[in-house]
């Protein structure tokens, strides 16, 4: 086993060295991956996760196919070791190679960090973050298992590559869907990553071992007890990829159709439909009342909360695990030794935490520069957590009230307990202090232009930057130092009250993603109501319908009972928006019929080797799965038996049984 291990390690050395070199080149020079250049925002971790996953898959494939390509497969397998031990030794060698490559990358990054490290330009936690690429490099285990299993399918090469790519998409989708579904807290994410990569990788390696132990016959891979294991694996891995493929193509078609739709609005005392091709050239239309691309926003006009109208300005933060940078402040500071620094301080937030970070560069300021004296204990760089004074964490939803003019104090309104916090950027070290007790505000309102409110009502998406708090004392705005009574100018109206001044109403009669039907109403009665149905371009419409017919029958049936309006530009991964809410029953019937027909067709071929599990797959995930089945399943043709050959010269016959000689 050691000999196999050493041989495989030597084979994996070159690809692993290349991997390390490419990663280092990207890490050192790539704009997005420069761990040394953009602390806190670098993409080295994701780069390592993706690169090691792909490298693992390629090395696994090479391991499975390389010996075969060099005609060494049988030479390697025909020896006194069980096949599974041979595979184990090869896998351990490959994974060790990948781990060493990761260690080299991390070590070089650390050394480079030491070499170029300028404590004034880079934050100290650089080395503390090096565990992250190490952790993320475990994607190699998952990738290697996938490549190995794909390579051992022993199908023709294109099928192997197709399956590996297809299943790779499925695995990535499953991993990220799981991470997304779990939430964004620290421990579960990292733990789940390890479980998914190491656990999933181990399962795939076991599957590969099983496949190898069973045989390496290219036309007989899925026999015997491997069948259920493979069916489950195919179901788990390939199904999401199948669903994704369909949804992606359909989304492209729907987006194309939506972008071809005209903007509906009002202009110069009449209704107007501005052609799609001119929408980029600037508004010829006075007010856009309906935009197919943005339709769900309009459909949601009756919602009480108005947060969506200010989200565009990023004043309402819905926080998760990722850091969101929301304010920064450049300033000049002079330290105790008289050195001047240009310091960039930025504030970021994620769920429960607000962080102040600063880096600085040593410059000689010009004579006009205003330089503040830094506090005696001030040292660059720094990273400092800003905690609430009452010991509670900040909640997931924070509302930011910017200061008037250039004041340096922002107001943070915590939506969970309705407290108010002052974020002071003026001193060298930012501070967070409480300015409003629990329950000191009840909501927010936005001042918008009256003309806009007349046209668009509460759904106005412009002129909505002036946010005020609703307090027991009335509407209050933040002037940078205190809350003061908020007042409207003559041409403004509060968004919460603009329903009374709204002139136009948009009624979406049919919220179809492809061909919506809209009715525009003038409350003043000056214009006749306008009913408009968008006709999708033929190509986009055909493509959307075709893909719909290929989607998962299970999802299509579920979609028929889904009445929630959806945006055409939104990805509909599982549900089919074309048949949502009972629309196009013929399309649903076509989808079901097609799946049934394919299932019956493949059922008829079962005697030729197709597994029953594929039939379940068709029913659950649709006709596209047939592509996968075709790629994976060998065709065991039921060949007509040729006439049996007879032995013309066998053992010497005895005299008693020798036939009479007849010469014709």
């Amino acid at each position: 086993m050691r000999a196999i291990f050493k041989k495989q390690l030597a084979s994996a050395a070159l690809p692993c060295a290349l991997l390390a070199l490419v990663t280092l080149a990207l890490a050192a020079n790539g704009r997005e991956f420069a761990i040394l250049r953009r602390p806190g925002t670098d993409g080295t971790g994701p780069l390592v996760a993706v690169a090691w996953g792909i490298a693992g898959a390629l090395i696994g494939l090479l391991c499975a196919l390389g010996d075969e390509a060099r005609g060494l497969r049988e030479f390697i397998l025909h020896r006194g070791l069980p096949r599974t031990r041979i595979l184990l030794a090869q896998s351990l060698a490959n994974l060790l190679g990948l781990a060493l490559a990761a260690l080299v990358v991390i070590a070089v990054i650390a050394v480079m960090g030491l070499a170029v490290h300028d404590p004034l330009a880079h934050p100290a936690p650089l080395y503390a973050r090096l565990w992250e690429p190490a952790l993320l490099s475990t994607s190699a285990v998952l990738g290697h298992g996938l490549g190995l299993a794909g390579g051992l399918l022993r199908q023709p090469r294109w099928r192997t590559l197709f399956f590996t790519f297809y299943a790779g998409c499925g695995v990535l989708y499953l991993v990220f869907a799981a991470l997304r579904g779990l939430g964004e807290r620290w421990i579960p994410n990292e733990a789940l990553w390890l479980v998914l990569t190491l656990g999933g990788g181990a399962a795939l390696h076991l599957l590969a071992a099983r496949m190898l132990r069973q045989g390496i016959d290219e036309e007989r891979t899925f026999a015997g007890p491997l069948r259920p294991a493979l069916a489950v694996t195919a179901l788990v891995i390939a199904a999401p990829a199948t669903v994704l493929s369909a949804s992606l193509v359909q989304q492209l078609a729907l987006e194309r159709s939506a972008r071809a739709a005209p903007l509906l609005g009002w202009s110069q005392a009449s209704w107007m439909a501005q052609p799609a091709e001119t929408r980029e050239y600037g508004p010829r239309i006075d007010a856009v009342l309906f935009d197919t691309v943005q339709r769900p926003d309009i459909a949601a006009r009756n919602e009480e909360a108005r947060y969506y109208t200010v989200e565009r300005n990023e004043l309402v933060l819905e926080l998760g695990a990722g850091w969101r940078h929301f304010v920064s402040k450049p300033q000049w500071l002079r330290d105790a030794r008289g050195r001047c620094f240009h310091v960039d301080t930025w504030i970021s937030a994620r769920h429960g935490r607000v962080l102040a970070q600063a880096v600085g560069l040593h410059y000689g300021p010009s004579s006009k520069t205003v330089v503040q004296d830094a506090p005696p204990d001030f040292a660059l760089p720094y990273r400092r957590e800003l905690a609430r004074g009452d010991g509670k964490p900040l909640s997931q939803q924070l509302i930011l009230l910017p200061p008037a003019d250039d004041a340096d104090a922002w107001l943070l309104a915590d939506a969970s307990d309705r407290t108010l916090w002052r974020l002071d950027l003026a001193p060298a070290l930012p501070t967070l202090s409480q300015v409003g007790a629990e329950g000191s505000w009840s909501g927010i309102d936005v001042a918008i232009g009256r003309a806009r409110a007349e046209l668009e009502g509460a759904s106005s998406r412009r002129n909505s930057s002036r946010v005020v708090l609703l307090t027991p004392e009335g509407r209050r705005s933040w002037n940078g130092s205190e809350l003061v009574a908020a007042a409207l100018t003559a041409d403004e109206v509060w968004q919460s009250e603009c329903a009374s001044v709204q002139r136009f109403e948009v009624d979406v009669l049919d919220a179809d993603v492809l061909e919506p039907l809209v009715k525009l109403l003038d409350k003043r009665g000056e214009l006749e109501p306008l009913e408009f149905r968008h006709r999708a371009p033929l190509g986009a419409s055909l493509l959307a319908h075709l893909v719909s017919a290929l989607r998962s029958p299970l999802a299509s049936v579920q979609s028929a009972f889904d009445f929630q309006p959806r945006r055409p530009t939104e990805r509909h991964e599982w549900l089919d928006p074309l048949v949502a809410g009972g629309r196009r029953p013929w399309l649903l019937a076509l989808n079901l019929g097609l799946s049934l027909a394919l299932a019956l067709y493949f059922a008829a071929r079962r005697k030729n080797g197709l597994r029953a599990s594929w039939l379940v797959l068709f029913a659950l995930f649709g006709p596209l799965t047939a592509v996968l089945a075709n790629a994976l399943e060998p065709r065991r043709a039921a060949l007509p038996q040729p006439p049996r050959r007879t032995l013309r010269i066998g053992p010497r016959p005895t005299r008693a049984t020798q036939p009479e000689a007849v010469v014709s």
Partner: protein
Amino acid sequence: MTDAIVFDDVWRAFGGRHVLNGLSLRVREGEVFALLGRNGVGKSTALKILLGFLEPDRGSSSLVGVPSAQLDGPVRDEVGYVAEGHPLIGWMSVARAIEFEAGTRTRFDRKYVDDALRRLGLARDARVSQLSRGQKAQLSLVFAMATDPKVLVLDDPAMGLDVVMRREFLEAMIELVSRDGRSVLFSSHILTDVERIADRIGILDGGALCVDAPLEELRERVHKRFVRASDGVSFAADDAAGVLSAKRVREGFELTLLDFDERRERALRARASLVSDPQPVSLEELFFELTTTAAATGS
């Protein structure tokens, strides 16, 4: 005597093509069996099925009493195998290849390998990829023999070797297989080689054996005769009549005859005006006659 190798009604198709159609053969202990056949007739397929690298559609095979499908782990060291083309890991040196072999075998006779390398003049520090084809073939055979296997399976071992190399290889092989009780199954195209070392031959044609007999016995039983046929009489291959093939030549026919006794001779003389004396048939001629569809008709 027990059978070291057994094929029992083995069928195998690839895609839409049948390759083996009920192959049955047995190789006894101590027997050297040559599996012959034209290109693509299924010799390598049969050997891969025997070694458990391919699965038969129907039928079964076994090696040293172990079914091919269960051939895994230490039992493989009882079977020496040289695959077609003599595959070896090219980037290794001969010494490292020996270490690799020793490390992956349950038993490995280093002394035997050292002696063989000395005898064959193979340098230990030479890179395997730099060895000649003949040297690779010899090294493969040495490795296959180093576990002291009960059975040796060789897939076209002389393929690609020139006459001199082939001769050297064959001599090495003859010496190696001369150990007691060792069975050998090998496929080959080189019939002169087969005649030198095989005890028994099998000719694979149409997916099954058309010949399965000891070589010496074959020489005794098969003869060639020239006949001048009477007017209107034709000759064609007829196994029941002992005519393996009939070929039209100048003024008569050349017949390849099997087990031709007095009774059959009388019948033949009744149909032909002249019958020559029996001529011996070389293996190459026999192979040609049996694997091509020859028939002839008199005028």
